[in-house]
């Protein structure tokens, strides 16, 4: 039961990464890809009706973590206090930028929100990547499962890590590169003309960066976190995830070469899902591992609510998510056209 909820929560955050990932990705490539006001409107319209629904996956995932593993939610959210607050402010800025930018057409208002949108999106990608890095690297939890991390210490891995060190920054960079590629592929699919051409160029550049960074990560994560290596050694079936991730990367290359834009974007979705699945598989059964002594970490066994609560949750979760899936299909089918601007 706890394993099931671990999977559900990991799945919800992975869906969040794929869906809000292209919103953030559009933000990252927004300034270089879209030069004219019309092109920028096209990009904003291509996420306008859905970004908010995409963000709900973060909230729903957070809520699910809250009730299924209250101890991990409490420890993690208070321990990552400062970066989380900054994520909240960035989410506020990103949302207002998307919605308010087109409310007034004026040469000061629009460029201001353009920069806010692009900057907030890129920083969000970096922070979410670094957050994943922190979870994978582990935190200095005390006997009660509590910790508090400063923003940085000496940028090294050790008994006193900070939120930012070379490892988490690497994952943050990989996250920015991945979402830039993801967003660029979305734009390639939704845009046309020179906008589409610029997006193609950004997609192939960031694809290269993603390939390099993925290799580095797959090498260093098992080195830094021995429990990862152990887990994959015990259950070699898990190797399917990293293999799938690389297959998806190859797929992106083939599809972009042959101008099959939708297929390329889907490969990018598959890449993100596979990478996160690889991370979740290797991290299992930990929610938050300890830096020094592995025994003291928070696992799905010592951080979960009672089994009665977990069973009750299943009764509403399954129909609820099926309903959400229905809305999702509706939104993407009826509210989003092939090219944003023409539809509105």
């Amino acid at each position, binding site marked *: 039961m706890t394993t099931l909820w671990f999977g559900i929560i990991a799945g919800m955050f992975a869906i969040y990464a794929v869906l809000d990932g292209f919103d953030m990705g559009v933000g990252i490539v927004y300034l270089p890809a879209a030069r004219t006001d019309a092109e920028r409107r096209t990009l904003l319209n291509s996420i*306008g*009706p*859905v970004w*908010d*629904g995409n*963000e*709900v996956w*973060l*909230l*729903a995932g957070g*809520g*699910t*973590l*809250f*009730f299924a593993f*209250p*101890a991990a*939610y*409490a*420890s*993690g*959210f*208070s*321990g990552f*206090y400062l970066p989380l*607050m900054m994520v*909240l*402010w960035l*989410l*506020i800025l990103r*949302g*207002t930028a998307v*919605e*308010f930018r*087109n*409310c*007034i*057409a*004026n040469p000061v208002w629009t460029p201001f929100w353009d920069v806010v949108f692009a900057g907030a999106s890129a920083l969000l990608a970096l922070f979410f990547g670094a957050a994943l890095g922190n979870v994978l690297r582990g935190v200095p939890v005390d006997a009660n*499962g*509590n*910790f508090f991390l400063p923003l940085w210490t000496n940028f090294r891995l050790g008994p006193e890590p900070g939120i930012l060190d070379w490892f988490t920054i690497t994952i943050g960079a990989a996250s920015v590169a991945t979402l830039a590629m993801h967003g660029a592929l979305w734009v390639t699919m939704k845009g046309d003309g020179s906008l589409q051409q610029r997006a193609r160029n950004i997609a192939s550049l960031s694809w290269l960066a993603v390939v390099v960074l993925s290799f580095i990560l797959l090498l260093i994560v098992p080195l830094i976190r021995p429990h990862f290596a152990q887990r994959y050694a015990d259950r070699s079936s898990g190797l399917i995830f990293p293999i799938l991730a690389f297959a998806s990367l190859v797929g992106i290359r083939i599809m972009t070469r042959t101008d099959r834009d939708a297929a390329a974007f889907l490969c990018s979705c598959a890449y993100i899902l596979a990478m996160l699945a690889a991370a979740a598989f290797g991290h299992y059964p930990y929610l938050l591992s300890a830096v020094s002594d592995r025994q003291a970490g928070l696992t799905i066994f010592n951080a979960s*609510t*009672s089994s*009665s*609560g977990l069973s*009750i*949750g299943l*009764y*509403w*979760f399954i129909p*609820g*998510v099926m*309903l*959400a899936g229905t*809305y*999702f299909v*509706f939104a993407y089918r*009826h509210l989003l056209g092939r090219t944003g601007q023409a539809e*509105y």
Partner: protein
Amino acid sequence: MNALTVDRIQFAFTVTFHYLFPQLTIGLALLIVVLKTLALRTGNSHYNEAARFWARIFGINFVVGVVTGIPMEFQFGTNWSAFSKAAGGVIGQPLAMEGVFSFFLESTFLGALLFGERVLGPRLHWFSAFLVFLGSWISGFFIVVTNAWMQHPVGYMQNTDGTFSLVSLTALLTNQWFVWQYLHNMTAAVVTGSTVMAALGAFYLLMRRFEDFGRTFVRLGVITGLVASALMIFPTGDGQGRNVANYQPVTLAAMEGLFEDKRGAPLVIIGQPNVEARRLDNPIVVPDVLSFLTYRRWKAEVRGLAGFPEDRWPANIPLLYYAYHIMVGLGSIFVAVYALAGWIMYRRRLYQTPLLLWALMLLAPFPYIATTAGWMTAELGRQPWLVYGLMRTAAGSSPQVSVGNGLFTLLGFMGMYSVLSVLFLLLIYLEVLRGPGGADPQAPQAMAAAAD
């Protein structure tokens, strides 16, 4: 100042600011459904244009509501980790359900409401409006379920490590406390929506702009405002009052400023609670009424604060007392204004009575004050408990978050929200200037054009 105080102020500030926006969208969602229904029934495009206008106002409110709502869910973990660890197994469920059942629905169909009029056709567009209404009311449902559990915990068990976990979802969702609190809260939101609609209508009539829309807004706002403000006092306010009397008698005593046990307790209209001297200074009272309202008997005994140990008294009795009296006082004023406006409207003289239009227009901020005071009554009344009778507020905050970090983020939120307020008011101002009408259903471009 200690970290606990900072955590409390930050939560109070962010949630108070946040709730300014959902209360309008909850109320407006219902009114937009009414307008869309009128449009569908009469075939008159006037109502569609009115609905479109309010959907844009709704949209701006919704964005600010969404971006200020995300911090609420995070703050349980960031600033109240001890509470989250203990109670997450229970209150995490309704919060996750809110995301799954309400936010997906609301966000998807708001998109349909704002952008989909042409693609969907009139019936599906009406249905989108209805689903947005449903989504916002479901959202309120789960939030009040969460709060009701903190006010009157049911359906849980305590584990050996002191944490709570959920035993019965049915008990949680049918909490006696929840039913009245929910209805009271939602009718209050309808009062906010109605008052804002009537106020804007009155403004247009006084400005002599968009007068046909002004009349529609005033008419609809006064009708729903009259019904909702009456329902707010009876039965919902009355029912909620008896919940407090049953489950939090010490809170009732503090709200009413009743220091001693009293047979035939009076209803205090006004007066200043003096906690040091344990009496109410300069009171104006109506004898026996509190006893009647609480127990339906004029001479029933109501317990005063003296009957309870002091460590169970709400921590800030004067603030609780004043918040409660402001809420009740404003609620009574709403009924009076709406009854008068309804009567004059029935006599077909409302649109020609500037004095009453002024009154309706100036009423606009007061439902916000009343709902804020109402929530302060609920939350201050729950003190010193975080979960009533089970966990004290002092035991719930995050042990590792220092005063300095807390102050930093509190000030950050204050700055961020000040900027948001200015932007919000600017955009609402532009919408009001642009007014309803104009056939173009395409919100962003049309809004941009209006500002040129």
